[in-house]
């Protein structure tokens, strides 16, 4: 099998930055969009309200099924990023395998997952709230509901596999894991990019 297709994925730090950058872009674009909306409203009529009030009013429910799965998916996203970059000490010195007691424990991966969920708790709880400001088609909601968790779970399983074979390496598997992770992430942020495009027009 020709694995050259994965050769472009060389610099893993850049790839980590790209995935974090996408999340940051998601937040920044949303803030920018809200400021633009506020400014536009202010132009139409001098606003007697603050931008926070606007956010409150603009928010609409997206459905409890979707919301629940969105929170789960964001949690999985942070976990899959963590597992891809911080299980093995290939990129950063800090990793699960640097803590031998935890790494050799039966519940090592579970402990790592809980730890990562704990430190990213605020993020995956608050980020899905941004969806409420945009009109998300039922099709996109369905993709997020069904496909994103599956993609991220596959990415996590591949990362766990890479850790168990460490110090052996398998770049193809790593690349595949990254692709599943980034595809899931793109799907998760996609409603905002299309929504912002609509709002800013």
């Amino acid at each position, binding site marked *: 099998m020709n694995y050259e297709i994965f050769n472009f994925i060389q610099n893993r730090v850049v790839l980590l930055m790209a995935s974090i950058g996408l999340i940051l872009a998601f937040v920044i674009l949303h803030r920018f969009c809200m400021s633009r909306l506020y400014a536009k409203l202010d132009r139409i009529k001098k606003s*007697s309200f603050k931008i926070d009030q606007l956010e409150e009013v603009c*928010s609409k429910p997206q*459905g409890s099924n979707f*919301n629940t799965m969105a*929170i789960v998916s964001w949690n999985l996203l942070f976990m899959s990023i963590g597992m891809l970059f911080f299980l093995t000490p290939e990129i950063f010195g800090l990793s699960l395998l640097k803590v031998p007691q935890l790494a050799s424990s039966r519940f090592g991966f579970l402990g790592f997952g809980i730890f990562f969920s704990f430190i990213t708790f605020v993020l995956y709880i608050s980020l899905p709230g941004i969806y409420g400001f945009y009109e998300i088609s039922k099709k996109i909601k369905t993709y997020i509901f069904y496909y994103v968790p599956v993609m991220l779970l596959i990415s996590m399983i591949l990362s766990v596999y890479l850790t168990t074979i460490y110090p052996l390496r398998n770049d193809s598997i790593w690349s595949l894991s990254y692709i599943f992770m980034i595809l899931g992430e793109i799907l998760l942020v996609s409603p905002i990019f299309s929504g912002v495009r*609509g709002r800013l*027009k």
Partner: protein
Amino acid sequence: MRPCIVGIGGAGGNIVKNFLQSEDVECPLASFGGEYLVFGGIKGVWLDSDQDDANDQSFFGRLEDGCYPGYIISHDIIDPDSNLKKYIMAKYGHDLKVQGYDRRAEYLKAVFEIFDKDPSVKDLALDEFSPKNPKAFPLLGSNEIGLENPLPGYIWRGGFRRFTSVGKKENPNGNSLPVNGKEGSAVQFSSAAKNFAKFFARSANKVNSSSKDCDSLLFLASLGGGTGTGFINPLSRFVRNEERAFPIFALGLQTERGADSRHAEERKRNLGSAIAMYDLLTKPPGSGIDGLLLVDNEILHKKYSGNYQAMDKAVFRALRPLIDPKNYPDSLNQDDAPAIRGKFLENLRFPPILIPCHFESDKNVNESRLVQCALKNKLYSCDHRRADMAFVFVRGLISDAAIRDAVNIHTTIPEKMINVYRKIGEGKRKEILILLRNPYGGLPFKEGEMDTMESRFIEVMSSALDFMAEEHKRVEKRSDGTIDWANQPVSLVNQADYSSKTKDALFKYFYGPEGLEIRIKESIDKLMRGEAAPLFIKPLDIFDGNGESRREQISPSDKSKVFSPIEVEEIERIISDKLRGIEKGRA
């Protein structure tokens, strides 16, 4: 405004389905339930009188079985062996459990009047539908008082009252019934999902906001003489008697020209429409509806080439600006239903007719263009300059002053009579819904204009009159003026199932000196003269206070007091001209 939308009859059900499409993710294998999320966080019910129709679809489940979205069959509360049913059948010939109402608006009107007026029926009903009889109260709970009028009582108290702010909250889950009643792990998942989302209310986009109670009622029905036409008035009256200040609105669909899919001829449907409109519009504020939105299916039929699904969706899309809850932050309570009700009824003796004009665009159009396009896109033909007030609901980034100016320029309605309700909407789309209040009172036939509201009303009422006149001809009177119903052919009044008492009452209702025929002629005369609202004034009943045939209040010789012979002749000439015109147009 957060209405509880009640779709009545087949057409009403099809439209309300559009309002109740879930915006949440659903799983085809199992219902995940959760909060049933729809646009605007509204609630809705389908009310029908035909169990077969309900069985032929899968969107609505039986409300009584705990399903949501749910349907309710009006006569489900009546036991097949009910004494009340037998009594009414014997005395009046009306079957309370008949499936569907076969385009007879007067059938249901009579049924509700019987319950309202016949003391024996009231006693029987109170006895049969008392709180002591739990079998008769499947949805009502134990501490309800008895039902004098079980049909609307069951529909309102056991059906959709729970979704409104006036509903009793005996059952804390009354607002979140499982989707189509499916129990098991799916529902457990949904509860877990709901609780999880509630726990993180902020991050979960305030999912609970959709469980707010509805602040008004909006009945959706076709005015084609079937279940919708028959129910819309008695039901609104019943609810109004129980809740004097609760906002109640109705949207009536004028059926298109020609025969419909059930081969019900246009004239018969138009009679149903005339009866329903007459009854709805003659109730003073506080005793009936607070506004009748009219939509002409003829316009939608042409626009969507007879695609009924697209037509139903168009009605939903047109009403979206009205029910969108996303108000501007500095005017959060602007579209509060009681406030809108007050505005609708301002300075009026009778509920207004409201004509919706709708337009939406993804392009960057200015306010003037929006208004212009909306006025070209009326859902019922009318002369917008005749309206005495306008209610403008807009979605998108739209200036209040600019939209007010635009409406003023294009309609000539004074600025102080223009009420603007702005919603933020989503994305780039701009949307406008203008409700024109009572936009009639001009001359009906104008050169170059196909339809005006006046001409359409005249057309509907004339064809109803024509149908009544034709049916009248089949009735032969004895020399003493009485009628031997047994030896008459089947006609509008002489239906096989009616008792003689009912036939007499109906005959007077249709053809009596103060009957519907005369009233409709009066209204046509008003329209011909270009008189402004109200179109109908005097309420008209089939039975009198004791469930007997209505007493004649003026003698036949007094007919001349209503119209001079010249006027009668003139009206008849106009009507026959108009009918000939319609026939020609069709040919």
